[in-house]
């Protein structure tokens, strides 16, 4: 045994390895990405680990491995579960053989997501169990339990940490060696593994009979705990439990009930907790899940207990909880004193530090080229999910829409059909293109839309921490593999015009955009230049005394390395990467130096 100080995501990964997983698949997404990265680092023996092309693919790869009896882990963020929901819904009916745990990391806030959806609701919708860890330490043991329950009931189970659990660090004690569990292999049985309406009907009945049994089983699960006593009780789960516990350190006369298995709800456990209780406060994030379950129980058992939470306005309906927010609502519920820190009401205005594209980011150059080429012409700029969503910021202002992974490509087509005289652009990153961009391009070709696809190819999945993808030529097994060519994919689909340009060459890029804008049909421009965070160029631009201080460079591209000192434009040497975009904009050629060209 040895101790490792790891992130919650690391604890989940190490727990899954202890559980004897044979296969891990997933798609990057904050706050879940480090699970697969940790597995790749610690895996032993025959463990297969992969970044799948998207969450649906990941779910399906794991499903058949699990049919074969191997233990499998699938990882994603909560919006990824939407992508994977098609296989998961059916898989819930079919069931599995080897334990299969699907980690879907929720992001209350949201801090880095499009939605504040709740994976516990998804579990209830799919009719499969869900586990809700409250700390990295608990995540480590709970994921091992999740595999056992998955096998016991032959069902995939969800495991949903939230951002603060995923990103918190703690010490975990692990075994020196972990080995995948042996597995039987696939046993052909078309009555079991081939989904047909008859099988769905029979299995649906079985599932509805089974789930209350699981709820009874969960009622004695060690992760569902109760401590303290009194007429007031707090029901909570996940990270909110840690916040509540932090406050209740000083108040032992309160019952604290932790629900670690929100679905199927451990009704008998909750009933025993409610004995002698007059008032309940439910402290949870996202949906009022525990609160709704308690209301059902109180109703069906005629309990005279008052239940407060999100539905009664005692807890905020949206956003994330914190230790301070929990202290605030608990002090109101218990009539205790709210702890006050330093009063900051008279603090001076704080400088805002909004996220921006990095200095030297090739996306800035791509956006700028399209902007210049389309000046004065009616255009739509459909953005997508990735660093390049930041192209929305001033002064670029080049993102009109952003919806979900891959949507920009298809949304550009909708704009074309409502405004045929305009030019419709879709900006998509290389990883997003592979994940969910390709079908949208086929849709455009087939349905005769006019659009320009701009692939911002920086050879990595930058936003989530630089994971490899099919275009990078390496995978999570550490193998060098053939790069999948975006150009050849588009050519194979029959895109008639495909141009590949270096976005840091402004003239060439503007010409490419103008050429495509003059043509009908589907056109593609691949703006190819590596992410500066991984290519780490150390070149620098310089400004000569020819500079007339017109500040056009600052006003047009908003690069963080272009700063003013005592009213004069200068280069922040700590930030400049020598991309050379500013030198191509300067009207008097005052910017030069050791640049990209």
């Amino acid at each position, binding site marked *: 045994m040895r101790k490792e*100080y790891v992130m919650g995501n690391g604890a989940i990964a190490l727990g899954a390895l202890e559980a004897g997983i044979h296969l891990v698949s997933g798609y990057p997404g904050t706050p879940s990405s480090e699970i697969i990265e940790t597995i790749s680092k610690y895996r032993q023996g025959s463990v297969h680990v992969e970044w799948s092309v998207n969450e649906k693919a990941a779910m399906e790869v794991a499903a058949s491995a699990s049919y074969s009896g191997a233990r499998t882990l699938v990882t994603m963020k909560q919006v990824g579960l939407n992508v994977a929901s098609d296989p998961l819904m059916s898989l819930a009916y079919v069931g599995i053989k080897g334990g299969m745990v699907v980690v879907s990391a929720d992001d209350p806030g949201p*801090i*880095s997501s499009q939605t504040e959806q709740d994976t516990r609701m998804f579990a209830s919708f799919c009719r499969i169990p869900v586990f809700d860890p409250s*700390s990295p330490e608990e995540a480590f043991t709970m994921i091992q339990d999740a595999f056992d329950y998955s096998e016991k009931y032959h069902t995939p189970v969800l495991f949903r940490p939230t951002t*603060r*659990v995923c*990103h*918190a*660090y*703690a*010490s975990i004690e692990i075994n020196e060696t972990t080995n995948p569990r042996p597995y039987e292999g696939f046993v052909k049985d078309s009555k079991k593994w081939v989904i047909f309406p008859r099988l769905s009907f029979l299995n649906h009945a079985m599932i509805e009979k089974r789930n209350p049994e699981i709820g009874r089983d969960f009622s004695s699960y060690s992760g569902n705990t109760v401590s303290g006593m009194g007429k007031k009780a707090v029901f909570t789960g996940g*990270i909110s439990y*840690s*916040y509540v*516990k*932090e*406050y209740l*350190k000083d108040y032992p006369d309160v019952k604290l009930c932790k629900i670690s298995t929100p679905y199927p709800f451990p009704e008998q456990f909750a009933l025993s907790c409610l004995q002698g209780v007059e008032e309940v406060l439910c402290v949870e994030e996202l949906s009022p899940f525990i609160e709704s379950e308690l209301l059902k129980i109180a109703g069906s058992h005629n309990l005279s207990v008052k239940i407060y939470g999100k539905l009664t306005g005692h807890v905020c309906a949206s956003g994330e909880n*914190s*230790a*301070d927010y929990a*202290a605030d609502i608990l002090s109101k519920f218990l009539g205790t004193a709210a*702890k*006050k*820190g*330093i009063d*900051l009401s*008279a*603090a*001076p205005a*704080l*400088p*805002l*530090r*909004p*996220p*921006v594209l*990095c*200095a030297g980011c090739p996306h800035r150059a791509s956006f700028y080229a399209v902007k210049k080429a389309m000046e004065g012409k009616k255009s739509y700029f459909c953005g997508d999910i990735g660093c390049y969503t*930041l192209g929305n910021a*001033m*002064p670029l202002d080049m993102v009109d829409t952003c919806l979900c992974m891959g949507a920009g490509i298809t949304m550009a087509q909708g704009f074309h059909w409502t405004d045929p005289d305009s030019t419709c652009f879709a900006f998509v990153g290389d990883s997003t293109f592979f994940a969910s961009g390709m079908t949208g391009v086929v849709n455009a070709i087939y349905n005769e839309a006019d659009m320009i696809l701009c692939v911002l190819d920086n050879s990595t999945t930058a*936003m989530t921490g630089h994971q490899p993808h099919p275009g990078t030529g390496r995978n999570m097994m550490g193998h060098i593999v053939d790069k999948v060519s975006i150009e050849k994919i588009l050519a194979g689909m029959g895109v008639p015009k495909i141009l590949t340009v270096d976005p840091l060459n402004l003239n060439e890029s503007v010409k490419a955009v103008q050429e495509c804008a003059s043509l009908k049909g589907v056109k593609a421009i691949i703006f190819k230049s590596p992410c500066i*965070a991984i290519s780490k160029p150390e070149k620098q631009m310089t400004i000569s005394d020819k500079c007339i201080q017109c500040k056009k460079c*600052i*006003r047009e591209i*908003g690069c*963080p390395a*272009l*700063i*003013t000192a005592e009213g004069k434009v200068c280069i922040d040497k*700590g*930030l400049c990467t020598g991309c050379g975009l500013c030198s191509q904009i300067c009207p008097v050629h005052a910017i030069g130096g050791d640049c990209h060209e």
Partner: protein
Amino acid sequence: MNKDILVCGVGGQGTVLASKLIASAAMNLGNTVHSAETIGMAQRGGSVTSHIRIGEQAYSPIIPHGNADVILAFEPAEAVRNLAYLKKDGIAIVNSVPVKPVTESLNDTGYDGRDMITYLKSKCECIVVDAMELCSGFGSTRYFNVAILGVAVGTGKLGLDVETILKEIEVRVPAQFVDTNKDAFLAGTKVGSANK
């Protein structure tokens, strides 16, 4: 030992390294340690905060407001941004050198950090350090983090000794930078012990 320590700065200032040095030093001294980093979407230039909780009785990964024994701030506005976490009798150790927002050239707010320092001094016990001056011998702003950490260790408020941190620097810093990091750290400890 029970201690809550908050480290804050701007992306690129080495906040994460400083917090790792503190956390692992505390663990090597036999303590239970939890920590958490809050980093927004910004790769560089965004606010970064690291919470280190030493002791058995820490449940929330984020320090509750009014609980931090020490705030180490590599930037004056970031100290103010996180001041609610400080205990009433806690101490803030603050670098007075400001980092302007990356959007400053587009939208000049005239931010120079001075108001922040004045405000901090009116609100809590603080040691203000000009890290530029302190690190002038080391040729780079990249040593601000260990220098400020040195100041904090020098005051004795972290409950961590100089030797333990020096060992952690050897383990966690790339070999070619170990000596300079140690020197910057030791320069900080002198300022810290003078302010005890």
